[in-house]
């Protein structure tokens, strides 16, 4: 059993599959036998806004909402959102894993703001003494599978202690079926070529 509370903060842009990734993680944690609470915040997310999901593991968890600077693990599916969540939520010596997709925010497209560079994420990672894992799989045919690529690496690096490969696979089988499940399981088991920063 996990000794204390473990907080996971997930973020991305509407349409990237944060909801599914969060639901898989939540169920995997449950299959591993831990107490868990979660909450999704999507507001108008379907329209290209930010989607946030929070998962809190442990006996002494009350609110599903994580306090700022208290996330042990931040999972991001987009680079701007990775930096945003890192600055707001990641604790010192925590871990950030992010899929390095760029969906430019409105002001970046309009030339009014700068796009986030990987270097900024690395710099903040050093400030926080955090572990940063960048994931990039350009050969993925379907961008909507980027979430499972990240999940495969969360498993590979054992980023949620006590949750094993079988638990993730059980969770995926709870939520998907047929060819979709097979494709995602295959990716989950075989994802290898992340770039560690």
């Amino acid at each position: 059993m996990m000794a204390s509370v473990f907080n996971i903060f997930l973020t991305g842009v509407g349409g990237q599959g944060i909801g599914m990734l969060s639901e898989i993680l939540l169920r995997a944690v449950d299959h591993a036998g831990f107490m868990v609470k979660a909450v999704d915040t999507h507001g108008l997310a379907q329209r290209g806004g930010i989607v946030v999901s929070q998962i809190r593991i442990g006996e002494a968890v009350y609110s599903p909402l994580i306090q700022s600077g208290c996330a042990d693990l931040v999972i991001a599916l987009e680079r701007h959102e990775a930096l945003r969540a890192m600055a707001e939520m990641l604790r010192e010596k925590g871990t950030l894993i992010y899929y390095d997709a760029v969906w430019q925010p409105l002001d970046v497209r309009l030339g009014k703001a700068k796009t986030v560079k990987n270097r900024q994420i690395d710099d903040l990672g050093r400030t926080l003494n955090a572990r940063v894992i960048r994931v990039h799989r350009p050969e993925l045919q379907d961008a909507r599978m980027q979430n499972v690529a990240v999940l495969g690496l969360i498993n590979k690096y054992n980023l949620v202690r006590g949750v094993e490969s079988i638990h993730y696979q059980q969770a995926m089988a709870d939520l998907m079926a047929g060819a979709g499940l097979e494709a995602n399981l295959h990716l989950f088991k075989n994802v290898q070529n992340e770039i560690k920063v």
Partner: protein
Amino acid sequence: MKKMKDMLLTREPFAELVMGNTALVRAMIESGTRVVTSYPGSPTPEIATAIGSIPPEQRPFYFEFSTNEKVATEVAYGAAVNGHLSTVFFKSVGLNVAADTFVQLSMMNITGGMVIVLGDDPGANSSQNEQDNRHYARMSYTPILEPADPREVYHFYLKAAAFARSNGMAVILRLTTHVCHAKQKVNFGHWRPAVPDDTPAFDPANGPYIPLAALVFPFKKRALENLSRARKLAESQDLNTIVDNGNPARGVITAGLPFHSLMEVVKDIPKPPDILKLAMPYPLAADTVTSFLENHREVKVLEELDNELETEIKSLAFDRGLKVKIVGKRDLDDWMGEYSPDKVRIVLNKVWPDIVGLPKKEYPLEVAHRPAQLCPGCGHRSAFFAIKQALADTDITVADIGCHTLGFLPPYEMGQLLMCMGASTGIGSGLSLFNKTRKVVAFIGDSTFFHAGLPGIINAIFNQHPLTLIVMENGTTAMTGHQDHAASGRNFNRATEKIPIRKILEALGIKHIYETDSYQQEKLRLAVEQAVATDQFAVVIARHPCMLKFTRQRRKQANYRPYQVVIDQQKCKRIQTCIARFGCPSFVRHANGAVKVNPDLCIGDGSCLQTCPSSAINAPGPVEGGNRTVEGGTSHLQKESQ
């Protein structure tokens, strides 16, 4: 794959990880609820998603999306006076729409019982305000139960339904956004379906049901008597929670989700306050609260949004001559925002800085905001791009509620005022009075047209207001997750005849009606120019199916092939109309001024082609294996990371 339907219809007790909205549906089933109605609005639409997982013929109750919240409330009431336990659910501001009917309910003998489920939105995550609907409870003498998490959503609905049925009345179950969307494992009970007695049981002798003038007083007395019974319910030991930390100096009275935030904030401190969590903010559990006040020297009322509890508790302490110090809201910030753990830190730090510290400081942020925006391929984008060209900068545009509201953002800036469902035509009519110089254009979506749009439209015809109304018709209630409406050709349960908006407008006698697909930007621009030139009430129907819905449906088809546009870098003169004025999120601006297409986002709709002055956007073609990552955002990343 676990099916939600199988879970919801399980006969034996079971435990499952569910969100609050799903827990509610299981509670409806176990309670024997027979009629459920709604109008879609965040944070409640997932209630209908769970209901929709059960095919109509297997569903233990009737469900419909009604045309608006008021009608939904009336349908539920009508069913309940016929003997059926009923439930209506909608978002916070939906109660404003339903109010005219809702405030009468407490006066009626609602024989079947009725639960009104409200999805309040502290923090205004997806609403035009963060109104505190507890005020309505007081005004209408309606008791409220307020769950803090999915487990309580389930248990409190069972309580509310049983109480409503046994007393023949309406009870509010007030959820908030992060109660609806919170997930945890809930232990559910048996479902023992009884053969329903569908005999229409309405009997005027159960009434009276006609409140008129002096006849109203017996009705009001009935409401007040029911409220007295609810006071006893409010005192129930099994509903309220006391956390006794052995602290006679300090206590906190709270309710709902803020209770969990409070627990989070005080769990690791040396001398935590005692806590009383009330299940019912109205009517107040006066004896329970008195006892808590008597046992503490100082009590903080920790209350999200307005000061309902604080006012009641201070009044109670005064009446009962209690010496305790009661601390309520300290400043305007205490009235605003969701009481998350961070917020509770800030609120409590003002009162007890010795035990509660402020939230951790965030690191300075250098990331652009990410406002919600119209999806790739959205017909509204094409429409706004064209309409903006038809209007002078000084003209006035009025938005309504729906996806098209997002047109207020750059680069369109279409829709300069917004109020609530259906308000655009009325506001536009007012803006047209004494106004000879600035054209007035109002927008409305198709679901809103039926919901609350018609009275404003009929008023504009009847009183001859010279404005142009643009109906942004996408065939669905898109903003809340694609629920069908009266012109969709389907209701929640089956195919129906469409009620065509064009024919309604014709029947109303509107002389100037223009209609075009929104992708035909030149035609739309001309139509708007002609419409505003009439100086009469004119309507332009700008129609295009919701492309988010359309694309999702296409992806499920076996022969689906993704299409995308490609920008010809030889032809592109970097004028950037596609980014700066058309504003599709699929376009990527590169540091050197080049524009490419983000392959993760483009759906190949091609609505952008006509906007490019250099004709540099090539017609959409099928995406080849390798092509995806060569063009646009992802390849840009590869270069950067090398």
